[in-house]
């Protein structure tokens, strides 16, 4: 009987669809739903388990829960105080940093049942899962020290893997007293102490954008790049814009490498007009401009991609990293690291693994590629230019007997008064076999060569001392 079969089939399909939806939805969304602020189950688990410990890659405790012997209450303790304040974050008041990112695992205790039984017998709470970060405590301390007295950020990653070795943002705070200081910190809206400037800060890139210009030029026409020659007169005009080289310098005859090493604004404004806009847009898209970075912690979107028909006046501003272009230090670091990594950009990550309190693996995170942004030849050429920048160019302050670095400086103007600029440096070391990639920005500190390079120097010295 056809109608019977129709009704039967209809309801069977309906219920099976419902069942399939249930399974798929739960499987896809359980983490997101757990992390939602309106979900009270975190509190439930905190009542059962003590929050897990967070470790650095070199074995130091970055965050742990200690039970007060006197009143039996749990306190979250950060032995390094303000050194890791933004990257490790805190768990109170909504949470931030790694504490927030891995909250799901930190509140859970996945040790074996028989081990839990022992804790139960002693009337205690179960120990939460452990998070092993990629952070290097020794390096982070050196970075924090180098940043003291400044506002800005420093981020150091491993170019071949994307592991974040250190991340400092100033001004900072002491997470040990965050609950007590909360009202005071949040009332001061201008300083943005809680913001992680390395990930969420957006600054005009200034001369560091010349890395992208150079990559675009090399990708577009290697021969033209090799044959490139320009005579700098100190000024360059297009449309109704006129730009000058930094400090009123005049560079005379330059090739591409010379332009890069001396950071000649006029030469790069010229190069900017030579670039094919379509290909530049493609390159910037591959580099993750104007889209969300492949990173699981909150990070800002860099905005710089020009319109296809943008006027020349805007183009020359972009090519020297001014105008409306803004980037985050993290993003610049990813691009620099890609140059150090043969043109392949790696996804940055801050957590190596999540373990049970007994040390058994729960989840291990592996390096993963974000994509190839330019050819390995371009990467080699860029590396060469950046090494020369250290040897004889604007980053001379990084010359050292025991190691060789490569990089690019930047002095990004951010106000009408030409005096005020952010000091940038982005680079890696050793130049021939990159181990670490460092990007630093010091807000309002002036010139990249004079302010950012010495800060990077202190950190690189410390790093190589530790090897």
């Amino acid at each position, binding site marked *: 009987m056809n109608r019977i079969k129709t009704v039967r089939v209809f309801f069977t399909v309906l219920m099976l669809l419902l069942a399939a939806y249930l399974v798929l939805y739960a499987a896809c969304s359980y983490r997101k739903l757990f992390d939602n602020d309106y*979900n009270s189950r975190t509190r439930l688990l905190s009542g059962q388990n003590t929050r897990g410990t967070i470790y650095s890659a070199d074995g130091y405790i970055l965050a742990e829960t200690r039970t007060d012997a006197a009143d039996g209450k749990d306190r979250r303790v950060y032995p390094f105080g303000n050194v890791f304040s933004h990257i490790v974050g805190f768990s109170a008041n909504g949470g931030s940093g790694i504490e927030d990112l891995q909250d799901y695992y930190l509140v859970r205790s996945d040790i074996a049942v028989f081990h839990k039984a022992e804790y139960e017998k002693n009337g205690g709470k179960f120990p939460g899962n452990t998070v092993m970060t990629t952070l290097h405590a020794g390096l982070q301390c050196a970075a924090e020290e180098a940043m003291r007295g400044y506002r800005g950020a420093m981020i150091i990653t491993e170019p071949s893997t994307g592991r974040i070795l250190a991340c400092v943002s100033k001004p900072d705070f002491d997470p040990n007293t965050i609950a007590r200081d909360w009202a005071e910190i949040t009332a001061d809206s201008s300083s943005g102490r809680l913001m992680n400037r390395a990930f969420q800060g957006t600054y005009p890139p200034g001369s560091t954008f010349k890395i992208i210009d150079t990559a675009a030029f090399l990708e577009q026409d290697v021969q033209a790049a090799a044959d490139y020659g320009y005579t700098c007169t100190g000024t360059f005009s297009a449309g109704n814009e006129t730009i000058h080289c930094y400090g009123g310098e005049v560079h005379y005859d330059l090739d591409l490498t010379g332009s890069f090493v001396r950071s000649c604004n006029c030469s790069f404004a010229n190069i900017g007009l030579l670039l094919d806009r379509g290909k530049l847009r493609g390159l910037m898209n591959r580099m993750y401009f104007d889209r969300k970075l492949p990173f699981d912690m909150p990070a800002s979107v860099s905005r710089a991609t020009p319109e296809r028909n943008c006027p020349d006046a805007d183009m020359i501003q972009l090519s020297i990293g001014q105008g409306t272009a803004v980037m985050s230090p993290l993003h610049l670091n990813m691009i620099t690291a890609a140059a150090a990594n043969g043109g392949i950009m790696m996804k940055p990550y801050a957590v190596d693994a999540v373990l049970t309190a007994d040390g058994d693996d729960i989840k291990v995170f592996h390096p993963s590629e974000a994509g190839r942004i330019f050819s390995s030849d371009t990467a080699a050429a860029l590396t060469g230019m950046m090494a020369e920048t250290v040897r004889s160019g604007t980053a001379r302050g990084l010359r050292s007997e025991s190691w060789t670095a490569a990089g690019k400086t930047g002095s990004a103007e951010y106000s009408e008064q030409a005096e005020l600029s952010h000091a940038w440096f982005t680079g890696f070391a050793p130049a021939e076999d990159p181990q670490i990639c460092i990007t630093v920005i010091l807000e309002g500190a002036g010139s990249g060569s004079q302010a950012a390079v010495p800060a990077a120097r202190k950190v690189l010295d410390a790093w190589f001392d530790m090897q």
Partner: protein
Amino acid sequence: MKIYIMETARILAPLLILAFTGISCIRRLTGIRAVQTMDREMRIIQLIIKELFLLVCFLSEAVSYGSVDTAVFGLTVTALTGLADILFTCLFRNADQEIMMDASMLFATGIVILTRLDRHHALRQFLIAGGCMALLSALLFGRERIRSALQKLSAYGIQDYAVPVSGILGLVLLAMVFPFGSEVNGSMLGMTLFGITLQPSEPVKPLFVFFLASAFAAGGTKWKRISLVTAAMGYVFILVLSRDLGSGGIYFVTFVLMAFLATGRRWIPAAGLIAGTAAFAASTILFSHVRVRVQAFLDPWSAIDSRGYQITQSLFAIAYGGPFGAGLTRGTPKSIPFAETDFVFSAVCEELGIITGICIILLCLLLFLRIFDHAAASRELFEGLFLSGTAVMFLTQAFLTIGGETRFIPSTGVTLPLVSYGGSSAVSTLIMLFSVQAVIIRKRERMRERMHAFAERYRQETEAAAFSWKEEQEVPR
């Protein structure tokens, strides 16, 4: 020690219900005419699994609360449900044991989660259901007497009045919600009469199915058909007006599908779909109450502390348990509004796991299919329509409630039959199940009688033939 019990129970309970459902599925997939001998063995295994499930669940609840009361209650419930199942099987050999088993498992899950949510409500639910089952069993047991009484009455031509009387009676009972009813969560569902709270939309359900089945079976003139449609729409209209849109939907779907099954006209479900969609769209525009629910379905996150609160809390609960659940008493199902009634499925998923949730969906489907099989095998139109109408009503309700709780469809404020807390719902579901069993028993008894009659005639004929052959044998001398 406690943690060993809790962890074991957490893994074991979903596995047990999975095994139970698996057996029911296997039985279904190997055909309606299952091997008789295996059938009995499988039923015994299912009964044991169900009893184990109840014991494991109640044990973990009792251990977690450290409460002797819970343990005693649990043991009593386990023992009594087991006894009830065995008694039913013995008393009513011609009943469909599969239906009884699957319904019993759903009820067991319900009691388990209700005990965890509110022990007093669990006790009340158990007593009401138990009392109702006892009463209905007594009626079923005395079916012969009732049948002969009804046959005497039919001499007075009372059958002619069955259709209009049942139709009007149902409408009146539903309409009583207007003068006497009280508003709950935006809809006028219940009323309190003589100190008892009941939802008229529940007991009217079997009456509605009876009304439609007899009306369609009686057939009739064009005028009769028009008045039938008008009356059925009247039911839906009253429910919509009292803002119980979930029940309105259930009644409407049941009517459309019963009409389709009765007449076989393809345009009926199509027209029903169009009319239903139009009515839904209209009610979204007209009733703010409906609009709020649709908005909460489309985007609960932006209004998470107001209109989206119910559904988001439900989703948090469902996703928290994982496949095996957090374990009974280990979640916070009480953070879901109406966890005992409209959102009981979410509570079950949170503590007993997604596996259990899937099993509940499958058990409801299996129950529907089983009743529907009997409807398909019916020779009388009334029988077939009554059975299929009951099945459709049951599964539509299950779909609406589970779909609403999981954000598959907007939530409609209906409960999960047999599992949710609610006296009226339990009673009406039991009435429907027992009337289904009554029909099945009668069908099987009639079939047995026919077979016996046939066998008897065959025996007589062969005996007569043998006799005459003998006679012929003796002749040549």
